[in-house]
């Protein structure tokens, strides 16, 4: 664990290079998973926006 930004960026870059170098069938399978996750997130967000219980924000009076 480090808070050295340069090392963090280098580590991220190396991770992306490793991902890019994976066989294409693995990368496409990851796309399937990423899409499934994005849809799940989108559905949960729209469910929360449409049907969920919501608290009305208080009307703060500014004088």
């Amino acid at each position, binding site marked *: 664990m480090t808070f050295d930004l340069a090392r963090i960026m280098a580590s991220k870059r190396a991770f992306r290079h490793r991902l890019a170098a994976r066989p294409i069938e693995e990368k*496409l399978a990851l*796309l399937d998973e*990423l899409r499934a996750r994005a849809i799940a997130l989108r559905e949960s967000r729209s469910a929360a926006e449409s049907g969920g219980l919501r608290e009305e924000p208080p009307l703060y009076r500014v004088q």
Partner: protein
Amino acid sequence: VNIKSTIAAINQMQADGVIQRYAIGGAVGATFYLEPVATLDVDVFISFQPDAGSLLVSPQPLFDYLKARGCVMEGEYVVVAGWPVQFLPAANPLVLEALDQAVEKNVAGVPARVFTAEHLAAIALQTGRAKDKARLLQFIEAGTLDTKCFQDIVARHGLAPTWQRFEQQFLGGAA
């Protein structure tokens, strides 16, 4: 839901003569060269053949074929094997060239025609949305581009000024 099945279905469309040539572009195309790029759809570029006796091209036979095989239309997309696919006509010289020079990749026994990395990068430069610029930066950072080939495409399609602006904005003046 399996993108490999989507590619196999597109190959079948080609084998059945519904489309002539195709090539995968967009985020799925980029994934052949970069780390997986999250996306919700597949961009498939195709060349349309005008109807007999007409100069107009119609995508109707393509949609009829897919509907007959149980595919569902969702707006401008057709859902093929669970993935929304957008069929896009190769409508400008850069995309036509990209379609001509697309390469065949092997996805565990399933062939897939994909734009070259250089054409994907040039199309991203031409399209120019924020996400396209981000993708172009990914290509540059990954070092997957043949620089001369990319520069030639950029020059051939009048994108040199756009590339210069991109370099100044994102690469400190030089790639």
